[in-house]
């Protein structure tokens, strides 16, 4: 049996280490040393570079050579990881009962009963897939973005690969301790990606804000993780979710506290109103590539965590939290959308739209119906693609004009029609236009939430209306109208940029027209979650006497 997931985690980690270990060439060093160093590093990388043929000719000599190598290595490793995960996904069995597949369990710290345990069900599989699709595109999009840095941006690419390893790890972990380790360790590369490779003077502060919010949430979760271990006696998710296990028998008050400990961390991560304030700051100060990973992938860890840990580990506590969370979700949906309308900075605008979208996801999760949760799971993936693409396009604009302010643009569609077209498609995906992927997920969420209770569904529609407003208004202000002086020579999308964004557009359209393959993967896992929930709910309402049925 092939240890798919371990390989998928190890491959980008090795890539990060290789890039980090590339010989450092100081700028004044002679050109041949640099070239030699670059060449030897390329040779070391071996098969990793095989796929990295599509790239600009390397700049000659100086500090550029290792940076060029680093880019190619990063692309090579991330594409190799994508292929590896894709191969794994082809072996995924969708006919099963929604349990974990590709499971691996090795003891790690036996003293605390900690395992290196990984495995995926349908939901985590699609999230892992989404992550590995986004990373090579981010590398491609960030190709020249950090070239003027001292290190030519190679530190950035090492961080991206390190982050990719942790992203796969966090979705694949089936040991709560391991999950926590990835959850917290992920902060470090992102912290440096924002602080060191961010935009603007405030990036250090934004990075700090991001880190402190996340750490505070993480530390609260640490108490809950410890609590789960003390109560449940194990860290293995499969044992903790066992309805006959020790955790299931815990008294309801403790279960609620533990649920809350996990939930606060995930709500900060997601981010949910009122703990969302770090996201616009962080995304606004990030380079677009970082923002894609931050909003597209990292924030999904929050919603994924709610689904996988809050709901499945504490089914008895969930009913108690449904209405508060639904309330917060509705506030997030409307509040995020309204603030998005008022933004003058495109990066912040997209970040606020995400606050709104995450409201839909949490709403779907906590409506506790089959359609709503399937919709929410699908929403996570589609949002990753759509918002990722939107951030990338905004990034292309910023790379051309050096500004992310909406007022600095106008009439771009006349000078750069391709760019404007892609912008429009990704924007329309953001407002869930039928025929594009996010529509399917949003529709499912609405159907599911309506079945749960019509009132929140009705309130949530406000978010859809507002979405049309903020997206189309941004498009109107940046792409239409007269072209200002400085923009007349704006170049259209280059080949590299097309390659970075085209796959996402293709995926958005493909899954908009035919979402069934993804739903087939997700549904068994969602059914399992919802059934466990329903069983517990029945047991709770019917009293202890019928509890044996489970």
């Amino acid at each position, binding site marked *: 049996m092939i240890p798919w997931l371990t390989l998928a985690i190890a491959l980008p980690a090795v890539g990060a280490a290789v890039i980090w270990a590339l010989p450092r060439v100081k700028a004044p060093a002679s050109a041949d040393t640099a070239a030699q160093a670059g060449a030897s590093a390329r040779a070391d990388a071996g098969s990793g570079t095989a796929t990295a043929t599509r790239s600009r000719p390397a700049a000659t000599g100086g500090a550029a050579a290792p940076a060029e190598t680093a880019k190619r290595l990063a692309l090579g490793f991330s594409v190799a990881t994508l292929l590896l995960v894709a191969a794994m996904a082809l072996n995924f069995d969708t006919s099963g009962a929604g349990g974990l597949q590709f499971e691996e369990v090795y003891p790690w710290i036996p003293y605390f009963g900690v395992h290196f345990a990984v495995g995926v069900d349908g939901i985590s599989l699609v999230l892992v897939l989404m992550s590995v699709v986004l990373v090579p595109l981010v590398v491609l999009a960030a190709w020249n973005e950090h070239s003027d840095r001292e290190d030519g941006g190679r530190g950035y690419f090492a961080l991206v690969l390190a982050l990719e390893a942790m992203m796969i790890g966090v979705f694949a972990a089936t040991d709560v301790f391991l999950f926590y380790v990835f959850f917290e360790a992920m902060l470090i590369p992102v912290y440096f990606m924002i*602080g*060191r490779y961010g935009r603007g003077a405030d990036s250090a502060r934004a990075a700090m804000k991001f880190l*402190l919010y996340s750490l505070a949430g993480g*530390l609260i979760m640490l*108490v809950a993780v410890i609590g789960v271990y003390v109560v449940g006696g194990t860290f293995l998710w499969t044992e903790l979710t066992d309805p006959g296990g020790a955790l299931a028998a815990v008294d309801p008050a403790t279960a609620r506290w533990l649920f809350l400990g996990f939930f606060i961390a995930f709500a900060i991560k997601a981010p949910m109103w009122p703990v969302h304030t770090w996201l616009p700051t962080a995304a606004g100060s990030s380079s677009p590539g970082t923002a894609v990973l931050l909003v597209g992938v990292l924030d999904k860890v929050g919603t994924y965590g709610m689904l996988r840990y809050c709901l499945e580990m504490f089914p008895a506590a969930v009913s108690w939290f449904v209405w508060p969370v639904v309330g917060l979700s509705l506030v997030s949906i409307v509040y995020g959308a309204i603030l998005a309308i008022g933004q003058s900075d495109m990066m912040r605008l997209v970040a606020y739209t995400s606050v709104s979208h995450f409201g839909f996801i949490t709403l779907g999760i906590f409506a506790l119906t089959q359609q709503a949760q399937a919709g929410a799971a699908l929403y996570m993936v589609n949002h990753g693609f759509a918002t990722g693409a939107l951030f990338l396009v905004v990034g292309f604009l910023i790379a051309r004009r050096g500004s992310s302010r909406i007022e600095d643009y106008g009439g771009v569609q006349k000078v750069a029609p391709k760019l404007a077209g892609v912008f429009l498609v990704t924007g329309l995906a953001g407002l869930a236009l039928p025929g594009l992927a996010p529509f399917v997920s949003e529709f499912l969420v609405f159907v599911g939430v309506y079945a749960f209770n019509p009132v929140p569904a009705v309130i949530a529609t406000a978010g859809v209306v507002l979405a049309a407003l903020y997206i189309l208004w941004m498009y109107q202000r940046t792409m239409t109208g007269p072209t200002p002086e400085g923009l007349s020579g704006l170049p259209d999308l280059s080949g590299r940029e097309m390659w970075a964004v085209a796959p996402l557009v293709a995926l958005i359209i493909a899954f908009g027209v035919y979402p069934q393959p993804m739903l087939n993967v997700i549904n068994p896992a969602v059914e399992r979650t919802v059934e466990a929930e329903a069983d517990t709910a029945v047991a709770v309402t019917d009293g202890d006497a019928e509890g044996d049925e489970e």
Partner: protein
Amino acid sequence: MIPLNLADGAPPALHGVTEAPPALDWWLLAPFLVLFGAGVLAVLFEAFWPKDSRRTVQIALAALALLVTFVLLILQVEAVGDGTTVANGVLAVDRTVLFFQGTVTVLALVSLMLIAERRDGRDAFSAQAATVPGSEEERTHILAGSQHTEVYPLVLFAVLGMLMFPASNDFLVMFIALEVMSLPLYLLCGLARRRRLFSQEAAVKYFLLGAFSSAFFLFGIAMVYGYAGSVNFGVIRLAVESGGAEIFADGNGEPLLLMGVGLVAVGLLFKVGAVPFHNWKPDVYQGAPTPITALMASCTLVAAFGALLRVFFVPFGTSAQIWEPMLWTVAVLTMVVAALVAVTQRDIKRLLAYSSVVHAGFILTAVVAGSVDGLAGAMFYLAAYGFTTLGAFAVVTLVRTRDGGQELGDIDRWAGLGRRSPALALALSLFLLAFAGIPLTSGFIGKFAVFEAAVAAGAAPLVVVGVLSSAVTAFFYVRIIVVMFFRDSEGEGPTVARAGLLTGGVITVGVAATLALGIFPGPVLDNLLPSSEPGQEPAAVMVDQVTAVPGEE
């Protein structure tokens, strides 16, 4: 002496009274004797060895003594089994004690590397401490290249005290150990080469406050003696169980015990630097020569916590209801106050001092847990923290001002360090992240271990306070990283002294230990720490493990 019936039919045991020459197990005493012998020898060298080669010989002797001690400790691990006492029951030798002693020895050896480091022929110590700072005489000594090689015997004696402190099975011996450990440290604190007045002030402060706390400790011992009729830990434990010595048949001796526990705790909490007994730490850490600060921050803390754990778990182990509320309060105060005060610090050494206070608070949560898991957690935490803190102080010794080459304490002037010496800045960042408890560093596993023990013991609110103050501490650790990496130096930035082989070695050891204990802590956790078996009552495991009631041998 108040006779005490241990059990029906058993002869009355007399402790602390030497009727016959005690049977000494020289083999188990060997680590102490080696260090003591080396210390004495070093003093003699100080008098008789020719001056030009004296320093080399002293360093070699100190290193050799520590190495031999460490090897002896390792050899004893298998031999002691479940533990025993030596020298008429005044010193305990068991695996827990050996772990503390081994940790202290290794950390001392690493600190010795920092202490021995010289730059341009000068070490961190005053040329002639007896001269008036700034005087002509001082200048003469500096120009003549005088040096205090007395530092090495002093370190050896201090380490001897640190080995005895957590091994004591008798309050009087513990007091002697405390003084043997502290007196050389008071002296060493005042020996800084630069900012001498500052250093001397620190030494005086440390001495006065230390003497004060010793008095508390001693007074507490007297109270406990009055209650239990003995200073032996085993006897005190039995006395506490049975409600005091025989004269307290009606159980009215409790006030004595309360006072005794409280006063002894003051002495011990002072040494670990818990709030409200922490005020010496920032001043002393800042004023002392940095290598000595490193020694104190690592070895002294380990030894002091070793002793504290022993006192609360062994003699007072059955009176947890007395001291638990007290330690709760102290732990909460320590974590909250120190974390908040640390946020305002601008000097790296003061900041690390406050950080050490916060960490003492985290470890206290494990003491409050009062379980085997708590003991194990605290042991792991101390070992992990010791290496990390040594590495951090080693970095501090390298960052200097442009003019005059003093150490540059002001964090705000560290801007741009990440660009100038990325490796050093990365190493320090790793140490800081470990302090903050980020996963994949030893600090995280340590924090997990102590918090897990506390939650399991029902002290979840304490742990909540702990994680909240962790979040605060993360702020000031990360701020240093921000300054080093994300801010450009305004005006003149720091220079970085080239790391010598020794300092480089310390940083390397720090990095290696921080990562190894963070990623693969298994071997240490499984092999070196005590583990509880399910269903066992924590206090019971404790006693069997760490006490050996004298008279049973």
